[in-house]
C-alpha cells in the first residue's frame, strides 16, 4: 500500500479542538454557555464572553468516532424519524444518553442561538433542546435568497435581529455589550476567514499540497473558534506547512494525475478510508463546496459591522438559490482546474443535497466534466452501501483514465 505524506498541522488542530472541548467542560459553571448553529453570528457571543458549543460539530465528532449509529438509534427509539438529519439524531441521542457518548455528552447550555440560514431542521432541533433544558432560545430568521446580491429589505431585517440578539444576550446573561471588544473579535474573525480562504486556495497549485479530507479535519476551528487567537495561530501554522509543501513540490497525493472537486458534507465515519481508492489512482480532491462555505464571505466591515454581518449570514451557500450555487460550483471547478466532480448525495442534509442533480446539469452545460453522484450519509453509516459505492468509484476512475 502506498504511503501518503502526513500534515503535522492537523495534529495541532486536533489538539486545539481537544482543548476547546475540555475548556468548555471545565468552565461551564463559570461562564454562560450557548449552543449555536454553524451559520450563526458567533462573534456577538464571543464578544460577551459567552462560551459556545456547536451540536452540529459534535454530530460530526460522533460520526468520526463511529458512535453516531448507536446514538441515532437512541433518538429513533424516542420517535425521531430515520430521515431526520443525522447530526440532529446523534446529538439528541447523546442528550438522552450521555454516558458512553463522545465526551460523555456536551455540557448543558444556558442559552440557545439558532440561525436558520442553513436549514429548517435546526429550528425544531433547537426547540427540542430549549424544551429539554428549559433555557431561552433566540431564533435568528434569515430569509432564503433568490438573487446573488442580498435584497436590501432582507439585509435590514437581519440587521434588526442582530441588534435584538445583542440586547437579548445582555438580558439573559447579565453581561454588558462592549463595542471595542466587538471590533477586536471581528478583526480576528476576519483574519481567520481570510486565512482559511488562503489555505483553501493553495489547492490551486499543481500538484495540490492538500486533499479534501485534510480540509475536513482542519475546518473545525473555522466553524467553532472563529474570532479567537487560537484559530488564527493554528491556521497560520497550517498555511505555512502547506506553503512549504508547495515550495518543495510535495503533493498531498504523490504523482497527482487527476484533480477533483468534492460536493457536500464529508462522510465522517470513513474520512480517509473513503478517499483511499481515489488516492491510490492518483486522484486528489483539490477543492470542495463544503469547506468553501466558510471562506466565500467578504470581510466584515468594522465600521458598519451589523449590516455587514447580516450580508454574510444571508450569503451562506445553502441559503442561496440554485443558479447562484451552480455558479459557485462551476467557478470552483474552473479556478482549481479540476478534471471531475464527485457529489455526495447526503441523505441527512436536504438543503445541501436537493439541488445537486440540477447543479450537476448546470455545471455540465458550462463545461465537460465527468461527474459521479454517490448516495450516502455524513454520519449514519447504515446508509452507506459499500459494494455499490465501490463499483461506482471504480467505474468513475476508469472513466477519468
Amino acid at each position, binding site marked *: 500500500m502506498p504511503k501518503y505524506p502526513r500534515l503535522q498541522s492537523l495534529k495541532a488542530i486536533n489538539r486545539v479542538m481537544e482543548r476547546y472541548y475540555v475548556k468548555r467542560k471545565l468552565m461551564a459553571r463559570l461562564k454562560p454557555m450557548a449552543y449555536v448553529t454553524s451559520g450563526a453570528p458567533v462573534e456577538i457571543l464571543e464578544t460577551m464572553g459567552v462560551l459556545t458549543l456547536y451540536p452540529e460539530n459534535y454530530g460530526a465528532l460522533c460520526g468520526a468516532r463511529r458512535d453516531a449509529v448507536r446514538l441515532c438509534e437512541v433518538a429513533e427509539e424516542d420517535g425521531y424519524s430515520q430521515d431526520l438529519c443525522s447530526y440532529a439524531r446523534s446529538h439528541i441521542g447523546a442528550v438522552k444518553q450521555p454516558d458512553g457518548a463522545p465526551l460523555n455528552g456536551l455540557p448543558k447550555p444556558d442559552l440557545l442561538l439558532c440561525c436558520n440560514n442553513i436549514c429548517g431542521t435546526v429550528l425544531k432541533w433547537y426547540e427540542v433542546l430549549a424544551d429539554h433544558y428549559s433555557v431561552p432560545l433566540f431564533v435568528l430568521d434569515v430569509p432564503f435568497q433568490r438573487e446573488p446580491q442580498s435584497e436590501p429589505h432582507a439585509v435590514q431585517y437581519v440587521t434588526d435581529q442582530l441588534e435584538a440578539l445583542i440586547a437579548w444576550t445582555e438580558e439573559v446573561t447579565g453581561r454588558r455589550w462592549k463595542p471595542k471588544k466587538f471590533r477586536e473579535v471581528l478583526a480576528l474573525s476576519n483574519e481567520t476567514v481570510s486565512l482559511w480562504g488562503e489555505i483553501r486556495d493553495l489547492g490551486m497549485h499543481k500538484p495540490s499540497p492538500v486533499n479534501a479530507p485534510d480540509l475536513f479535519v482542519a475546518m473545525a476551528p473555522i466553524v467553532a473558534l472563529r474570532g479567537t487567537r487560537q484559530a488564527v495561530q493554528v491556521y497560520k501554522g497550517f498555511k505555512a506547512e502547506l506553503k512549504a509543501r508547495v515550495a518543495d513540490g510535495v503533493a498531498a497525493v504523490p504523482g497527482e494525475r487527476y484533480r477533483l472537486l468534492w460536493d457536500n458534507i464529508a462522510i465522517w465515519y470513513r474520512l480517509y478510508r473513503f478517499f483511499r481508492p481515489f488516492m491510490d489512482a492518483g486522484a486528489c480532491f483539490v477543492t470542495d463546496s463544503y469547506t468553501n462555505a466558510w471562506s466565500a464571505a467578504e470581510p466584515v466591515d468594522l465600521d458598519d459591522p451589523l449590516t455587514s454581518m447580516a450580508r454574510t449570514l444571508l450569503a451562506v451557500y445553502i441559503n442561496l438559490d440554485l443558479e447562484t450555487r451552480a455558479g459557485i460550483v462551476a467557478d470552483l471547478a474552473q479556478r482549481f482546474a479540476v478534471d471531475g466532480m464527485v457529489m455526495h448525495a447526503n441523505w441527512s442534509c436536504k438543503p445541501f443535497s436537493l439541488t445537486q442533480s440540477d447543479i450537476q446539469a448546470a455545471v455540465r452545460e458550462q463545461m465537460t466534466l465527468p461527474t459521479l453522484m454517490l*448516495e450516502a450519509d455524513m454520519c449514519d453509516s447504515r446508509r452507506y452501501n459499500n*459494494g*455499490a459505492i465501490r463499483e461506482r468509484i*471504480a*467505474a468513475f476512475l*476508469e*472513466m477519468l483514465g
Partner: protein
Amino acid sequence: MHYAGVDVGAITAKAALLDDNELVASAVIAAGYNRVEAAREVLAQALQQVGLAREDIARLVATGYGRVQVPNADRTVTEITCHGRGSHWLCPDVRTVIDIGGQDSKGIAVNGVGKVVDFVMNDKCAAGTGRFLEVMAHALEEDLARFAELSLSAQRRVAISSTCTVFAESEVVTHIAAGAPKAAIIAGIHEAIAARVASMVSHIPVREVVMLTGGVARNGGVARMLEERLERTILVLPEAQITGAIGAALFARDG
C-alpha cells in the same frame, strides 16, 4: 492469438473469445454460488467450441460484480467500461447503452471511440431489473419467454404503480383478483420496468444510437416499451448478453 473476456454477473457468467479480428466463440451459463467455478466453466465452454485450450489465450480480462473471483485474470475492468467498449465495437454509432441485468440496471453514455463519458446505476431496487420479471413471471405462472410474448400481444395494460418488487407483487395479485386479463397485467409489468429504467437513464443525456444490453434485452416486451418511453428506436443485437464480455476481451487484446 486469442483473447478472452469473462463477465461474472449476479445471475449469469459470460465468456467471449476474440482473435485479432473477430468474435470466435462465446458462452453463457448460470453463475450459481461458486463464482470461481462458474468463471472457469464458462471459459472452458467457449474454448471448447473452437477447440482451444486455456494456454491458447494470450490474455484474459475479467469484468462484472464477480470479476475479482475470476482465476488468473490479467486485469479487471468494471462492467460499465466494458459495456461501453463492447457496444462500440458491435456498433460504432452507439452513444447510449442501457444495460438491464439480473440485479441491476445501468445507463451508459459513450463517445465516438467507445469511451464512457457518463453513467447512472440502479442497484438499490429490484424493480428496474431482470429480477422483477422473474418474480412476476413466477407469480403469474408463466415462463420468461412466453411472458415477453404475452406482453406484446396485450390489448391494454394495467397500471402497476408500486416501485418495490414486493409491493408490486401484491398489486398484481389484486389485479388478478379483480379479473384483469393476464396479458394486460403482464404488459403492465413490462411497462413498469421500462418506466423505471427510462427515468433512471434520463439522468444522462440519451443520444442515438441507443443499444439495449444485458439478459433482459432478450425480452422484446421491455425493449418495445422502452422505445415508447424514450421515443427512440432501440438496437438489440444477438450479442446483447455478452457485450460486457466482448468489451473485456477487447481490453485483453489491447494488452
